[in-house]
């Protein structure tokens, strides 16, 4: 027989609060734990001060990060570029430079830098189009990287292997570069500047 009817009596307010509490608790754990699980750290070969170097060189960023004659971009300078100034004997006193001279310059071994802004292989990015053609500052995408005294920790996504800088720092599109270098961030800037191109312009 139908003896139910007043079922709502079974649910006391305490049950609801327990539910809300559990929900919030799990959401918080997920929010903090997920990045910790998803991203791993990788050390840079040795420390490097952009600030120090900027004081020594004459032409700013371009002194080391330059265009080649065919319009391609060198990106991180090769060891040869470093050797234009550095010899096997350290120029300064820092222990970092000793490592650099002993392990890399002396052995003529390329430095395996971890590149924060390295994009997945499907992405085409032209520094020439942005710097030489559109006249953007390096800092508009790389932030104050050129003024830093230390290299921050490099983090990468354990699943994809890509740098966390691509899209791991914030999921909501409040931060643009350098905090985030997602396709949406490129697209936003393009759209704001009235450049709406075919997919091929940024993909290969």
């Amino acid at each position, binding site marked *: 027989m*139908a003896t*139910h*009817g007043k*079922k709502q009596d079974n649910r006391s307010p305490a049950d609801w609060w327990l539910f809300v509490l559990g929900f919030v608790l799990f959401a918080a754990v997920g929010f903090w734990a997920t990045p910790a699980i998803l991203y791993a750290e990788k050390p840079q070969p040795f420390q490097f001060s952009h600030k120090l170097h900027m004081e020594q060189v004459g032409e700013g960023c371009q002194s080391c990060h330059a265009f080649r004659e065919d319009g391609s971009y060198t990106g991180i300078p090769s060891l040869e570029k470093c050797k234009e100034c550095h010899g096997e004997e350290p120029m300064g006193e820092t222990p970092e430079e000793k490592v650099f001279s002993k392990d890399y310059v002396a052995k003529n071994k390329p430095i395996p830098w971890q590149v924060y802004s390295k994009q997945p292989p499907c992405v085409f990015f032209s520094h020439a189009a942005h710097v030489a053609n559109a006249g953007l500052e390096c800092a508009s995408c790389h932030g104050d990287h050129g003024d830093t005294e230390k290299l921050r920790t490099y983090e990468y996504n354990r699943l994809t292997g890509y740098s966390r800088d691509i899209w791991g720092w914030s999921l909501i599109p409040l931060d643009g570069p350098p905090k985030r270098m997602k396709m949406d961030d490129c697209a936003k800037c393009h759209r704001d500047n009235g450049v709406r191109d075919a997919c091929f312009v940024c993909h290969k």
Partner: protein
Amino acid sequence: MDDSKFWPKGTTRCKPVHFGLWMLFCLALAGWALVSAFLCLYKGLNQTNMNDYFAFGVWIVVDLAIIALGAGAFFTGFMNYVLRREELKNIINAAVIIGFICYSGAIMMLGIDIGQPIRGWFGFWHANVHSMLTEVMFCITTYLIVLIVEFVPLILENRQINKVPDLHFFAHNLHTIMIVFAATGTFLSFFHQGSLGGMYGVLYARPFAARGGVLIWPWTFFLFILSAIAAGPSFTTSIVMITEIVTGKKLTTHKVKMLMAKVSGSLLLFYLVLKIADTLYWAFVQTPAMGLSPSVYYQAPYGTWLLIAELGIGGVLPCILLLSPQVRESYWILLLAMLLNCFGVTMNRFVMTIQSLAVPVLPFEKFYAYLPTWQEWGISAGVIAYGFIIFSLAYRYLPVFPQETKLNPTTD
């Protein structure tokens, strides 16, 4: 094991042993599908016989066919809830379940059919609104949601579940506003049945499939809607009749079946007139304008027998049968006519998919034929097994047929 307290009130069902054996058979069929699906997902689509000439294979044919046959759900719902044909309430539950099976089955198949299933959501997120396939994806998914909403109250009306007051009232209230869902479903279904046809009609560089039309809609858009609503009610009714034969019970009055047959037949006649006009224009005006003759289209094994099978045996013949009152009176000929109608729409979807791709467009290209592998058949069979399982469970435990108790009075 006695499950009789879950049966709808006042009905009897076969012994659990028999039902279990039948389920085992269905599960075996589903197992074949699971093995096939695993191979296709793990090793890739090289497990099929599709290739760069037959980009679409038997899965798309089955997809299109079951979606056309599932149109019985929206059209019966439309006639029942919107046009207020009260007598159709006796078959609407079956129509909804069959529609749900067809649509969910089709979506599961599509998940295996695309090369990168994990990226399936790109079609929604990065939608190209100019593609007919985008329209299909959006409408099918949304309509499946509608079908779930329509199916849920029926599940909640299981004799035991319905004792829970919350669920009882929820089911009851969903029924009260069913017209809202039925109308939305009609709108959605109308568009994606059309978009499925539009998918082929817009392939303007594929002379076999291409059609003219109005605005953005090629004629196939309208022809697919019409053929689906002509075949859908036939499919629903024939499934009910087959269930009657298998269970040995009368589940709806013959009057309901005759009404469905009449609707089906009239729509089929309307469809056939337009389809034949379209075919004649296509064969004698459009095709020569592209420098082709219909004889190029119909090469072995895809000969003109396809045309005869689709429009003759699966079109004109069932149309005549369904529209003659004497035939509608006869149980067996009516069933035959309805099955022929379903066969016709299936042939249409087959021809539009496979033959469109088989016909070479470059003059120096070859004419290829295609045969599915056992993995492709396995997944197709899986959808059928899935349908058997859902429909059998629904029949056993849910009050699908309102007239059942009246038509099968129990002696005890």
